[in-house]
């Protein structure tokens, strides 16, 4: 999802470029060189990256909301401390990514305004509600699992600051997935009610997790160019297949059933066959019709507005100190 075009009506970015510069750029990228902030790059490359990186950053920031509201309800001090650390990591990931986007000439303010006004998209997954504690387990296991699948190849993405941010994020992400799976293990081995809760969470999060990889390749118009420019290194469908193949045995270990009657091993292709994602639901959620879309953006805006005084106080303090030093 993070690497996916979320808006269906995005205008293709076509600006005339100096053919010699473009050719040199394409050759560098094809040779797996990294592009750095001050290097020449086509406008379409810059704009695609700004959109993708800021969307990725917004996803990290909004991603704090469904989990943050479980910190006080986590069942033990150990779980509270872990969840708090995870949510703090998500904030950190958002910040690494905003910084990477800023090297392309956009400002933090512009990006945050775009998020709050609803102009910018973020991962559809966060517009589903977290109803029980098992959802926190399922999110770590499946949602962070899918995010890792998406982000690992991005460590070799052609834009240097984005690739370096991804190296950092991937290092930290593994803990997120493991703590989630550990929650699932505890529930799957618990009482009958706890096991039901775990199964229910898997039922609700499985399909939205598969949607995180974005629309099928034949309906993903920008994939070809993004692959050529090494902004993207693997296609949506390739990543989705990998995710299913890795995750199915993990569900088996838990003794839980993946909610897809068509899911079965295909010896010939060396991977699983699986059912079709409900793309109508996906596009509805992208359009902002997700079950808790309004709640999320409202919570995000309120957090920003309610903390205005902190930003103002810090700025006033800095100004006062500077004036005193100048005197």
């Amino acid at each position: 999802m993070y690497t996916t075009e979320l808006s269906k009506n995005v205008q293709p970015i076509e600006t005339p470029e100096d053919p010699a510069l473009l050719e040199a750029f394409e050759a560098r990228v094809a040779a797996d060189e990294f592009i750095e902030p001050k290097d020449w790059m086509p406008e379409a490359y810059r704009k695609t990256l700004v959109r993708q990186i800021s969307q990725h950053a917004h996803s990290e920031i909004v991603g704090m909301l469904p989990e943050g509201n479980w910190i006080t309800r986590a069942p033990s001090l150990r779980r509270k401390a872990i969840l708090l650390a995870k949510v703090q990591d998500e904030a950190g990931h958002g910040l690494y990514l905003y910084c990477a986007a800023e090297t392309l000439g956009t400002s933090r303010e512009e990006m945050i305004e775009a998020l709050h006004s609803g102009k910018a998209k973020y991962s559809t997954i966060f517009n589903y509600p977290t109803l029980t504690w098992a959802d926190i387990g399922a999110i770590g296991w499946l949602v962070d699992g899918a995010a890792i699948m998406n982000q690992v190849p991005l460590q070799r993405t052609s834009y240097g600051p984005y690739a370096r941010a991804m190296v950092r994020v991937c290092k930290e992400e593994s803990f997120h997935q493991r703590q989630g799976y550990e929650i699932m293990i505890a529930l799957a081995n618990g009482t009958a009610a706890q096991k039901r809760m775990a199964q229910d969470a898997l039922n609700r999060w499985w399909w939205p997790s598969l949607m995180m990889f974005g629309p099928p390749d034949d309906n993903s118009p920008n994939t070809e160019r993004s692959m050529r420019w090494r902004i993207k290194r693997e296609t949506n469908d390739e990543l989705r297949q990998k995710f299913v193949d890795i995750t199915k045995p993990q569900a088996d270990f838990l003794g839980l059933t993946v909610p897809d009657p068509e899911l079965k091993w295909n010896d010939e292709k060396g991977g699983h066959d699986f059912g079709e994602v409900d793309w109508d639901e996906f596009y509805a959620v992208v359009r902002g019709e997700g079950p808790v879309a309004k709640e999320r953006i409202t919570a995000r805006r309120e957090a920003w507005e309610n903390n205005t005084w902190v930003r103002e106080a810090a700025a006033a303090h800095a100004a006062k100190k500077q004036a005193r030093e100048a005197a």
Partner: protein
Amino acid sequence: MSSDWPLWEVFVRAKGGLAHRHVGSVHAPDQELALRHARDTYTRRLEGVSLWVVKSTDIVASDPEEAGPLFEPAEDKIYRHPTFYDIPDEVKHI
């Protein structure tokens, strides 16, 4: 005009004996908060023992367009490298 706080580049020394290395940037109104933000953002897992923050606007960078004239002259001065010199095999420790 953006009302963002100034941008600071963050450098972390991973451990004693190593140089500080650039890791990213933070926004902050002053140097004290820049250090605190850098600590929270870039050193949550024992990544370092020391931090530097420098205002991004204070960094002077070379122009990538001039990378050729700046760095290529070194390529034809191969006599700066030890392998340029032929020393007979029987001469040891040189």
